[in-house]
């Protein structure tokens, strides 16, 4: 869908939705957990990102319900969102594998023999 790397908040949100549909607060908690506490998404930022992803067709509203008197809308990945996440994961995996390979094969800093 896009050749550019995904921005981190987008990547984290799509990853948080990869295994199951989730509601707003659960997404904030998942993003926090996936990023190891590094990314703390606030409510306004979350809904800005969700509105954008909804408009781009990468996520959809999976359910709207009232649980214990609380309005809750659950979001899920669409097929396009899943494909995009898979492509991004593959891109990151290949970069990471290449980094590991080069680190493993690096005996001396480049230029030391020059």
């Amino acid at each position: 869908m896009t050749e550019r790397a995904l921005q981190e908040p987008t990547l984290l949100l799509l990853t948080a939705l990869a295994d199951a549909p989730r509601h707003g607060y659960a997404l904030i908690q998942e993003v926090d957990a996936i990023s190891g506490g590094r990314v703390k998404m606030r409510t306004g930022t979350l809904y800005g990102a969700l509105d954008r992803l909804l408009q781009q067709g990468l996520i959809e509203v999976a359910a709207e319900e009232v649980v214990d008197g609380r309005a809750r809308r659950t979001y899920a990945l669409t097929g396009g969102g899943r494909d995009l996440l898979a492509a991004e994961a593959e891109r990151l995996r290949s970069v990471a594998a290449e980094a590991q390979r080069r680190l493993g094969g690096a005996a001396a800093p480049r230029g030391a023999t020059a």
Partner: protein
Amino acid sequence: MSTVAPGGQHRTGVALRAVLALYPARYRRDRGAELAEVFADTTAGTGRLGTAREALDLAAYGLRLRTGLTSTALGGRLLAAAAPLLAGTLCGLVALPGDTRFWRVADAARSGFDVPWQQLPDRLALLGLTVVPVLLAVAAALGAWRAARTLAGTVVLLAAVRLGIRLLTADVEPGGPWLTEADVWLLLLDATALLPYLAAGALILAAPADLLERPGRLPVAIGAGTGLLVTRAQGGYDSWHLMDGWTPLLLLLAPLLLILCAARGRLLPAALGLAVLPLTAWFSLFSLWEQVGGVWRLAPLAAAGAAGLLLTGQALAARQDGRARVS
């Protein structure tokens, strides 16, 4: 899920009601309850600072929705396209040898802290407005947008400081709070030099952060060149440049017409117009005010021009919508 003390709950409730009022009514009806639940959960057990941060973030998104400056709205996308150009155009305001401002900057740099303390804030702000826009352009060119936004905020702050100092130190006629005509003229002339920084910095800050990700070397360079060009064309009121005639009108209308291209979905020319407008609008209006002979004579012309542009923009947007529906 939430465990909030009664006092904290009341505080959260008040903050939330105030913040949700900023959202467009339709969005609030659709998402208000959901936003309130997530807000209650995220602020549960946090202190005042945490609640305030969360409320500010929620308010910021509400304002973006209200003003059409989200990353999916046309306004937001236009601002994001204009941001690197704006970062460049501010460099066009650089003081070059031969300018009156160049001598002021050189004098401020030479004297450093060796001036009466009353003059120090203005001198430092003047030096800041010489250096910070260059750093802002470099940050935007490198794609360091977090730094660029901080620097844009600094530019706004420095310009506001200088403008505030001008207002506070304006000569007031003895026995009355009224400014003389000459004072008003000088005050407005000073304002035309500072408002470009305020407006351009504010526009960069208003651009949606999630659309500012790429380095913008070419747009920054184009912006800097264009900024320099229009600043030279504008000249300013001194013994060399009087800038009367059609130039102010041209420098005001040309960017406005370019901005209208956004209604046809052409973001790049619209972004260029938006980047140039903060530099030219104020001095052009000032010059037209001078030529026409006062605010009351300029007001009908300005109102007619604004109405014409608004109607043209709406007509173009309606036509674009019609085409989009057909396709």
